[in-house]
């Protein structure tokens, strides 16, 4: 009994570890001030949802976490984003290495025009994660298993990834993202192009993934945020208006703007 209690307490303490810490982050697209002085601490091995109306800055902020905004010339990021205490915008940080640690899944499933196997093997290969073919096979199988799609594709690994259904393609993309053994998974509206069954499968997967990864998900579906996340941040006009436990945000939010948004009173 004592051991169980101790384990529970330890787990609870550990889940409060901060994986990503943003301090005073501002993002500009040219003259547009898209993110305004955002402070946010994202818990390790938990699912954090970003919600807010279109154009509120939630996807912009998500893309800062693995420096996807670097590819946009007019985009300027100031402030600090720390991954386990390390500034990800430091000169010494290689964005490609960073993106291996912080994987991303996009709104529309975007498998490479290659076989299912190659889609998953690509990342580990370029990052040199496998010493030989047997190891690579193992990584591919484990990644597809974790993405809850192995049983559906194990007999057609060498057929094109683009031949799968939308929901399967998205799970393949999640498998591809976790093949480089990332610590964080960023998901930008991962279910918006999926039917309800595929959505339920991806949500089930997200719930499994949080045992091993820190997941940050942007979603327009309030119910999805409520279902899959433990923490929720509400973005509005570039600010984080409210950030806290998902249960609290959806039953009794502190800020009237949060309440207006989640109850469908402001768009």
């Amino acid at each position: 009994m004592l051991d169980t209690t101790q384990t529970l307490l330890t787990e609870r303490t550990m889940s409060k570890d901060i994986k990503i810490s943003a301090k005073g982050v501002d993002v500009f697209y040219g003259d547009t001030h898209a993110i305004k002085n955002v402070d946010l601490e994202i818990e390790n091995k938990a699912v954090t949802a970003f919600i807010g109306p279109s154009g509120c800055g939630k996807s912009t902020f998500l893309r800062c976490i693995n420096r996807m905004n670097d590819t946009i010339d007019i985009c300027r990021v100031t402030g600090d984003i720390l991954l386990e205490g390390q500034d990800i915008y430091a000169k010494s940080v290689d964005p490609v290495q960073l993106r291996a640690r912080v994987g991303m899944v996009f709104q529309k499933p975007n498998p490479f025009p290659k076989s299912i196997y190659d889609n998953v093997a690509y990342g580990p290969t370029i990052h040199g994660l496998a010493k030989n073919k047997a190891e690579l096979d193992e990584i591919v199988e484990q990644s597809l298993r974790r993405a809850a799609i192995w049983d559906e594709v194990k007999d057609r690994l060498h057929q094109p990834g683009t031949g799968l259904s939308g929901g399967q393609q998205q799970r393949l993309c999640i498998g591809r993202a976790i093949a480089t053994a990332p610590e964080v998974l960023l998901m930008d509206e991962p279910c918006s192009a999926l039917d309800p069954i595929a959505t339920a499968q991806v949500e089930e997967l997200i719930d499994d993934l949080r045992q091993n990864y820190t997941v940050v998900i942007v979603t327009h579906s309030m119910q999805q945020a409520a279902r899959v996340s433990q923490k929720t941040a509400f973005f509005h006009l570039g600010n984080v208006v409210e950030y806290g436990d998902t249960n609290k945000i959806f039953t009794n939010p502190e800020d009237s703007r949060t309440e207006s948004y989640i109850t469908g009173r402001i768009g």
Partner: protein
Amino acid sequence: MMDQEHIASAFDRDLEGVQALIMQMGGLVETAISDAARALEMRDTELAEQVRRNDKLIDALEEQVASEVARVIAVRAPTAGDLRTVLSVLKISGNLERMGDYAKNLGKRTSVLSEMPAITGTGGALRRMTQLVNVMLKDALDAYIQRDVELAEDVRQRDSEVDQMYNALFREFLTHMMEDPRNITACMHLHFIAKNVERMGDHVTSICEQVVYLVTGDMPDEGREKQDRTSTDSALGKV
């Protein structure tokens, strides 16, 4: 609470609709309580019978609230204040339905009591107690509609007066029964009536707790002293 309207105006209509049903139920229960009390005092079996018949309307409304709330939850997936609104509506309709049942029970016992000799001196106390509960109910429903936590707290505190009145009646009925065993049957009925009215007060208290939850998101602290001591204090039985 939100004064702002929903983008989907049908959602506003849904929430207004279920709350209107609660108000309708509340009105019927207030009438049932005052009619039942009057029937008891005047030995009006016709009115008592009417209270019993009208309870069916209250029951039907409770069912309507339950099915409407189920539909709103399924279709609108309410959150935050909207969620608390539908949850409180469901709970309050249950409280009102029970209060209606107690009023109906008053009606039934009135029909029996009217065939027995009257017990002198208890009618006034029962009337005052019932009136007090009815005013509490009216104020609780006002507090609900106005989202007035202060009024809800005030009504909650008033329940101890009802409890004290019940304690006093309990002793009084015991005295009557000991004085003359022929009073026992009538006094037992009157005691059940007093107990039912005391329970109505508890349901009003529960409605007030829902008002606090609806507005603040938290249930009120149990900072209210229970005054019905008849089940714990043996001294109350000594006359």
